[in-house]
């Protein structure tokens, strides 16, 4: 339990809404607290709240603060926060465990060596670490359906790069600060590109456009280039060879 006297903390986000943060850095209890608090806000059905979302350790409420008195919202949130210990909340139900085949390194994921070095291991150990880790979707964000997953062992607490990589492709597996991301679309990033998947996190034409939900768990078993090419050639579901089962 990593409570801190400053948290939970309520802040305004421009005129766009309010943010309730449960920690200054990623922690598992704060992540669960943010998910549970969002569910509680949704259950309240407040008219002023246009929508809600979570980031790693915070719950966001989109509220038009040009029209709604900010202090009234802060009072309502303070009262709701006082109703329980949010750090003690359970994970959401209906979660899945995904297994997503991943090609590590090669010219398709050129920063494996660099990331391994930052983590203080050799490339083979890095592949073992990353392919055997079981991580949880901490939040969906940045791009549609894009998961931030964690947490990796402590030696993977590597910083983001100072400069941005111009573009990593769709399905890129990138790493920083003990977390992994599968990129939804080609995008610039400060995270290091260590693996390549054929998994589509966002399928706008599908009945289930967003493949993952916060709380889902994933692993990234290693495959070789031939297997990735085979998957890319034959998969049109968007799963990129991934399989899943219910866990809760």
């Amino acid at each position, binding site marked *: 339990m990593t409570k801190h006297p400053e948290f939970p903390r309520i802040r305004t986000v421009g005129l766009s809404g309010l943010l309730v943060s449960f920690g200054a850095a990623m922690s598992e209890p704060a992540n669960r607290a943010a998910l549970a608090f969002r569910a509680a806000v949704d259950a309240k059905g407040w008219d002023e709240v246009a929508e809600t979302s979570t980031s790693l350790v915070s719950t966001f409420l989109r509220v038009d603060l040009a029209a709604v008195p900010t202090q009234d919202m802060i009072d309502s949130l303070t009262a709701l926060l006082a109703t329980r210990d949010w750090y003690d909340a359970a994970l959401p139900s209906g979660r899945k465990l995904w297994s997503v085949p991943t090609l590590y390194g090669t010219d398709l994921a050129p920063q494996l060596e660099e990331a391994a070095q930052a983590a203080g291991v050799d490339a083979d150990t890095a592949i073992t670490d990353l392919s055997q880790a079981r991580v949880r979707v901490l*939040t969906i964000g940045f791009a*549609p359906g894009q998961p931030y997953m964690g947490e990796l062992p402590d030696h993977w607490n590597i910083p983001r790069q100072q*400069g*941005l990589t111009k573009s990593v492709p769709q399905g890129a597996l990138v790493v920083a600060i003990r977390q992994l991301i599968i990129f939804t679309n080609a995008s610039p990033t400060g995270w290091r590109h260590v693996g390549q998947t054929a998994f589509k996190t966002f399928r706008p034409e599908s009945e289930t456009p967003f493949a993952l939900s916060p709380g889902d768990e994933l692993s990234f078993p290693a495959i070789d280039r031939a297997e990735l090419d085979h998957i890319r050639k034959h998969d049109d579901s968007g799963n990129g060879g991934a399989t899943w089962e219910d866990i809760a």
Partner: protein
Amino acid sequence: MSRTLTILTAGPGVSVQDMGRPGYLSQGLTQGGAADPVALHEGAALLGQSAMLAAIEMPGMGGTFEASADTRIALTGARMSAKIDDDPVVWNASHLLPAGARLTIGGAQTGAYGYLHVGGGFDTPVLLGARASHLSAGIGSVLEAGTSLPIGADNGGATGNVLTPVDRFGGGAVRIVPSMQTDEFTPETQNRFEATEFRRDARGNRMGVRMDQPGDGFFAADTLSIVSEVIVPGDIQITGDGAPFVLMCECQTTGGYPRIGTVIPCDLPRIAQAQAGTALRFAFVTPEEAAQITARARTEIKTLAGQVRPLVRNPRDIRDLLSYQLVGGVVSAMADPFATLTEEPTP
């Protein structure tokens, strides 16, 4: 057979836009929609219809278009040269585009995003609640030559109306409120930020706009270890090199770079409409002042429909007088030179 508008040529990045898709933040999808939503309100006012209808957004450069049937159109946003067949037409105005006539829209003269509206709006497929292409999310796509867009049922109304656009072109002062990490920047850095004249970098799009300036970058106390947090359009993110990056309608939903402030929503079109090289300054206002400014801006939007007035063909409104056939003397400008005598009206 429903009406269509066919794109004969299109500049890069031309796309269908509306007010976007609110409600998907938790899934990582930002609202998107028109880079300059004020233009959608102006188009709606000119055509007497809902601002929720979809229009064509044209970044920097228009295209050539042809309608399958007589169609009411309006032109708003960045002022672009425009003509129907060989006749120049006025921007910020509504016109009748006759069936088969060619509408040619050129480069932006003032501003960055021009808009082409049609009576009834574009009736393209709705995906996740909207017709807008969200290019960074991979929803929809830019429009290419040969595409025919279906047009919705037009409730009809006048054309030949004009509107004075809401002031937002040519850069200038942009008002901001403090953001979550403003306190991470020293008061000196905040002051220098307000005192700096920025130029909109050429690297700008619907996701964000980079701001250039010759001096040192703007650095927060702890730039690289801020936890990834929600982002909203207007947030001014300071990336690793110290350059401000104003997040726009198609921005990401979360980010880990510190934000020095947030542009208030009604000033965001001023950033969107700044051409590369245009000078901009940022000035902090309190949240209370920002709420008042926003309320005034919303009132201005609501009064747009009442400000629409008939287009008087004042020569000063016409950029290129020489391309008009200025007829005088005994020949009426309205007469059809090929009309036969039998078709002349009886006196």
